[in-house]
């Protein structure tokens, strides 16, 4: 018989060795399975000529047997939505949802880019100038601060309506969804804003988006696990009434949660517009859905109280691998959509199935 618990008082036999694996393990497993699937397709499909997705044996292009180009793009292409997803994760853990993040990306990009423009393009005046000369070649800190403040503003409005007016988060952020889309189209009446300063362009250059994503993920992970903020977020999502009765200032906390989420989305907009060297009103379309999906695939429960940043990062990786995998096996766009849908469902089916088996067998 197993040894007694170290964290328990009296009572039943408690076999510590039989504790269930963390949920994140399921996501990791899904990730590995999907990679193996694509590797297998690379071997099986006749037109693929036995190519490998992640490995690169023949020519050691980058001095490793890994296909570094592929590995980089896998992370790079999800880094920006990943940053949004970090904020969405804590919103969902708190029992809410944020649909406004996608349109917020568009609106923030438009606004921020107008303060990040350079005066001369190929020697000519910037053809896309939004403001006069006063707004040209400003120090990079200006657009950064403008963007984060705008995010904080939108987030606190979301939070205010949810916390004080008790609007369901789905509706409050759906309203904000429309408002932000309106703002982004209104800002320049639909004209794209392009040609940023080199300093601004640096923010999203090369692998920088990945650096931001990983850095912010670590920060958020620490906050959610080890601070009062994290604990209260979980508590509110678990049982809001109990949290209130236990003396948590639920309203103030919720505003903070939505504010942080929107600031992360605003920062994602900065990285995105910098990476693309342009801002357009339609930017960020569907990002809110993908950000939510990454979190949920990563094990965050939409009923609140459950989930982790590590899970979300793994969930983002699942998306990256799928997207690269599709291009790798040259799947047609129609089938890509269908396969993406099936894989999203499949990843969560796997998670549920393992959890249930673990609960039943133990």
């Amino acid at each position, binding site marked *: 018989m197993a040894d007694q*618990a170290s*964290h*328990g*008082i*009296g*009572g*039943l*036999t*408690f076999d510590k060795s039989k504790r269930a694996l963390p949920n994140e393990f399921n996501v990791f497993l899904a990730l590995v399975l999907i990679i193996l699937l694509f590797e297998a397709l690379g071997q099986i499909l006749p037109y693929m000529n036995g190519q490998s997705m992640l490995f690169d044996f023949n020519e050691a292009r980058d001095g490793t047997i890994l296909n570094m180009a592929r590995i980089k793009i896998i992370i790079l292409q999800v880094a920006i939505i990943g940053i949004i997803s970090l904020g969405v994760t804590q919103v969902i853990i708190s029992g809410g949802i944020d649909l406004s993040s996608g349109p917020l990306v568009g609106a923030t990009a438009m606004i921020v880019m107008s303060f990040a423009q350079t005066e001369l393009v190929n020697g000519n005046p910037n053809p896309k100038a939004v403001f006069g000369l006063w707004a040209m070649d400003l120090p990079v800190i200006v657009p950064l601060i403008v963007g984060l403040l705008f995010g904080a503003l939108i987030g606190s409005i979301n939070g205010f309506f949810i916390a004080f007016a008790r609007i369901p988060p789905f509706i409050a952020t759906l309203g904000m969804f429309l408002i932000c889309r309106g703002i982004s189209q209104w800002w320049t009446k639909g004209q794209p804003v392009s040609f940023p300063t080199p300093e601004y362009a640096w923010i999203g250059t090369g692998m920088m988006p990945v650096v931001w994503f990983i850095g912010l993920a670590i920060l958020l992970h620490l*906050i959610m696990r*080890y*601070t*009062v*903020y994290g*604990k*209260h977020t*979980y*508590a509110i*999502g*678990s*049982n809001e*009434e*109990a*949290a*209130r*009765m*236990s*003396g*948590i*200032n639920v309203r103030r*906390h919720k505003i*903070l949660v939505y504010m942080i989420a929107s600031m992360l989305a605003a920062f994602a907009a900065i990285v995105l517009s910098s990476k693309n060297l342009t801002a357009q009103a339609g930017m960020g379309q569907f990002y809110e859905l993908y950000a939510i999906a990454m979190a949920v695939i990563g094990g965050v429960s939409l009923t*609140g*109280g*459950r989930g982790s940043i590590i899970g979300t990062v793994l969930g983002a990786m699942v998306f990256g691998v799928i997207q690269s995998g599709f291009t790798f096996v040259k799947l047609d766009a129609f089938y890509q959509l269908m396969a993406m849908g099936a894989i999203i469902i499949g990843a969560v089916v796997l998670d549920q199935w393992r959890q249930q088996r673990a609960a039943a067998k133990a």
Partner: protein
Amino acid sequence: MASDMQTNISGASAPNSDAALGDIILETRDLTKHYGGVHALEGANFTLRKGEHVAIMGDNGAGKSTFVRQITGVEQRTRGEIIFDGKPVHFAGPLEARNAGIETVFQTLALADQLDVPDNLFLGREIIKWKLGPFSVLDYKAMRQRTLDALEKTGVKIPNIRGTIERMSGGQRQCVAIARTATFHSKLTIMDEPTAALGVQETAQVENIVRTLKEAGEPLILVSHNMRQVMDLVDRIVVFRRGRICANLKKEETNGEDVVAYITGAKTQPEYEEAA
């Protein structure tokens, strides 16, 4: 009707004019709560002195928990006054009530299902390692240790306190809620049917906790259906019937049968007759 109530105030306070007890810590005047058409609590005049332990008894649906919810700011009253520690209070929520010094075990327990035992015990007043505003860093080790100590007092057995609350048995949950209240000092403790789900041993332990409070001179309101327990523990019994107070009995001057007569409506104290 309000004027009827006024006359009752002195009546209600009468049995408490005990020299051994201190000042009034809590007083309610004409406290009333209507839910839509349901008059759950009507004109309650209630007084509690420092160091005094009072039981609230009454049928199911008599308004006992409603009374507790009005005092602790969980809900906003329809009418009436609450005077706590000498000052009229209007708690906007339970946080304010707790900050004012009222610790409560609610009938619904108010636990966060997906958190573990120490998390629940310290919810809203975590032990902090480094102070950083909302991002203050938690001291998990200290909280775990103090949780084990607090639970020990309730006599409950919990194989793994790091399991989430949703996995706890009915009695284990109740003990966590009680341990939470007993861990923190307060000016007034309110327990709404704290031992309803508890086993024989655990009930005895919780009653010991109550006795410790009595010795420390901390006042208590105990809502309970358990006649033996009430007779064992408190100084005074207030009986609710159909949303109104119908009796205010010193323990020494009453007995179980008498109390049941008040609960069932067979008897009503003269000073409450008009109201009921």
